[in-house]
């Protein structure tokens, strides 16, 4: 057994806990999880059945943690997990899984299948069987600070740009601010309207806020790769920044996995609870709306629909808020079939967009989204995740569908009742 495989098997033994044992002990091979997975429904290939993607983990469980499995191993009649098998499984564990968790939502015996895929990735990554695309993105995040290699000057350039556009100050490293805003690389590079929108909204809400020079990047490929050590390092950076600046709340941007990584996995990755709250921007916006802190005017009149990012809705519990917000600015909002908790993934999450060799499969799986969109034929698509947004844009272009995709924060900001721009209030330290 190679040293890396040994590490991989060891990692798998480490991640197996009572829930995983219970899940494997419960599976009856009914295959209903396949019906919930867009990689199966769009290809019809049974190998994409979610529970099948866990076969190496299941065998390690059986061989190491069950009496019968240990006896079989002793007698030499069990099939050990090999490097070749893990190499073959890379496509199943990464390319064809966005960690969307529809499988976990339908399993009749209650198995949280995506919980297990996330854990299996720990063994895949350490044994050298993770796709290079994700691996490199995480390495870049750890070494440079961002998966796209973006450094502080790029953020500062955007701050200047926003200040020039709005006349508002974009604060950096302000101690004692109520909110700390972090962004995804995608928002820094491709969707600069996000920072501008946030600046205008927080200004109108009368809130103090700040960016952080040592923690501006929100995305965390570590949880997609399956390397909790690296994921923990990336989380720690944000925790250090937030605690140094003594902020009350960190606002996770329009990025699904950033939210899961920080809000739900974060404290577990660093081994202690946070001293600050973590909220997704959509949660914050809806709070402002409910408290009457932001005033909007006018309505969108074209037909809009909302794509629920999996990590925000099914995995994050934020479903009602985006609808409240859309209701305040849109006259003609239509739900897609299966919207909300059971929404279908765009096909790009879980690191899939970082895997070059997965592109053809991802576009095939996008047919599910296409079908959902065609059912309502919207004029525009609204979402709240930069990765969903670019995946949707690519998919729509690939299938020649001329439907623009917009971010919800940006849409809310465009309806703000403009107040005269004044410099951002200095917070009391």
């Amino acid at each position, binding site marked *: 057994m190679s040293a890396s495989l040994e590490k991989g098997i060891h990692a798998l033994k480490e991640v197996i806990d009572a829930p995983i044992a219970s899940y494997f002990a419960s599976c009856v091979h009914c295959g209903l999880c396949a019906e919930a997975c867009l990689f199966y429904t769009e290809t019809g290939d049974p190998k994409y059945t979610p529970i099948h993607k866990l076969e190496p983990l299941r065998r390690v469980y059986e061989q190491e943690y069950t009496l019968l499995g240990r006896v079989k191993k002793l007698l030499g009649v069990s099939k050990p997990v090999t490097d070749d098998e893990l190499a073959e499984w890379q496509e199943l564990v990464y390319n064809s899984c966005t960690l969307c968790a529809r499988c976990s939502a339908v399993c009749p015996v*209650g198995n949280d299948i995506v919980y297990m895929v996330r854990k299996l990735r720990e063994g895949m990554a350490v044994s050298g069987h993770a796709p290079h695309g994700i691996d490199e993105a995480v390495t870049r995040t750890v070494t440079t600070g961002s998966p796209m290699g973006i450094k502080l000057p790029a953020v500062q350039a955007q701050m200047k740009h926003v200040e020039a556009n709005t006349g508002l100050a974009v604060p950096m490293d302000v101690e004692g601010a109520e909110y700390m805003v972090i962004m995804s690389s995608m928002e820094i590079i491709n969707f600069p309207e996000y920072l501008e929108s946030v600046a205008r909204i927080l200004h109108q809400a009368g809130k103090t806020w700040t960016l952080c020079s040592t923690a501006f990047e929100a995305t965390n490929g570590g949880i997609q790769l399956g390397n909790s050590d690296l994921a923990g390092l990336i989380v720690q950076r944000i925790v250090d920044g937030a605690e140094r600046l003594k902020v009350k709340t960190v606002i996770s941007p329009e990025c699904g996995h950033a939210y899961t990584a920080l809000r739900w996995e974060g404290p577990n990755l660093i081994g202690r609870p946070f001293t600050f709250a973590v909220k997704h921007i959509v949660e914050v916006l809806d709070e402002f709306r409910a408290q009457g802190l932001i005033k909007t005017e006018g309505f969108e009149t074209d037909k809009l629909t909302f794509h629920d990012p999996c990590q925000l809705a099914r995995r994050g519990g934020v479903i009602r808020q985006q609808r409240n917000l859309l209701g305040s600015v849109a006259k003609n909002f239509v739900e897609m079939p299966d919207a909300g908790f059971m929404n279908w993934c765009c096909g790009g999450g879980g690191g899939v967009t970082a895997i070059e060799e997965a592109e053809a499969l991802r576009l095939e799986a996008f047919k599910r989204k296409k079908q959902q969109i065609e059912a309502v034929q919207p004029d525009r698509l609204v979402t709240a995740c930069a990765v969903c947004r670019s995946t949707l844009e690519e998919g729509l272009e690939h299938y020649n569908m001329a439907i623009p995709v917009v971010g919800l924060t940006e849409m809310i900001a465009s309806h703000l009742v403009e107040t005269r721009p004044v410099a951002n209030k200095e917070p009391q330290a």
Partner: protein
Amino acid sequence: MSMNDLQWLTWVRGTGFNIAVGIFLLGVVWRLIEVYTLGRKPDLAAPRHVPGASGWHTIVRRSLPPPGMLARSPVSYIGGYVFHVGLAIVVFFFAQHILLVKQLTGLSWPGLPSQLINLTAVVTMVAMLAVLVDRIRQPVKRFLSTFEDWFTWALTFLPLVTGWMATQHLLLPYTRMLALHILTVELLLVFLPFTKLFHAFALIGSRWYNGDTNGRKGVPV
């Protein structure tokens, strides 16, 4: 009726039954310990509380098909419901079964008319055949199936068919068929803890963990 049949019946009712029940009980306890003493790490993330989002809710909620799933796999759901409910009715509401439980434990409850039990057994067998055909025909189910899936199907079907034939006096003399019925039940008991049939116990834990993990995020699953 030959002596052999009677001796056989006596053995499956006595020694055989004791062995099977013993393995079943010890097996179930062992498996529960083996699975649940693995424990899990505490969740350090601040929970979000939402009504209906908990392990207990999911134990109940997962008994119903989630939105859209019934249409995607009707045989799994309808066949599954009919055979599980049917099996429960036949096992727990057939007068002779209740009598056996009363002899063993002193507990008793009213049974259902034998005609109704007979009908339920037939419907249950039909449902089990339907899910078997579905397993053979559906690419995903066939792909996932191993020896264990066919074996456990047979382990479940045999007590049903032998019990029904014994009451209907079909194929074999009553004594021999009854002995066969009890023997197949014993095989089912012996294998249950060590095969996927253990889902009868583990699914409660699995649903609870799933419901609890996601419930802490404010997601009722």
